[in-house]
């Protein structure tokens, strides 16, 4: 018979694995808008973690900061500057 505690810890493990995958793809993604969206997935999983670790006050502060304000600021920055990240050294070296 499965219990409520086991399901809660299963949910924690699922959010941990999803946040790991989202972080990995967000760091290695060269399109910066996709990186911001992937970091929004990671923020949502951390909101679930704050809820399940019984810290509703932290979740109440963390949601507006990390889901609301922070992607808006980074999207503003991307709109003003460049949209992709050059990962190869040849592009930089050939400009000399």
């Amino acid at each position: 018979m499965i219990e409520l505690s086991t399901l809660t810890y299963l949910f924690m493990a699922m959010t941990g694995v999803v946040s790991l995958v989202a972080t990995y793809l967000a760091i290695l993604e060269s399109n910066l808008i996709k990186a911001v969206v992937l970091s929004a997935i990671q923020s949502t999983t951390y909101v679930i973690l704050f809820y399940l670790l019984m810290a509703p006050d932290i979740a109440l502060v963390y949601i507006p900061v990390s889901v609301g304000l922070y992607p808006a600021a980074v999207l503003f920055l991307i709109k003003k500057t460049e949209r992709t990240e050059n990962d190869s050294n040849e592009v930089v070296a050939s400009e000399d």
Partner: protein
Amino acid sequence: MNSELYLSVVFWVIPIYLTAFALYSVRAVKGPTIPDSVLAIDSMSYDLAAFITILSILFHSPILIAVAMVLALWVFALDIYVAKYLESREMGE
């Protein structure tokens, strides 16, 4: 009062929701375009608000309900940001 019966029925709802969240996460992570990922995050967060409400009943902690309202409000803001960004790119900044 047989509230135990109803509580056990509600308890068996949790694995269905966990499966649904796993499928939403797969679409959000591998979505081929940007609107796919944002749509998956959007649907997942609204369902997460419902799931948070059900869990706060099962945990007997009514104070945890406040997270659901804030989550439903701010994920909508993420939608609007990305939509405005995509549309301004088409209009030539």
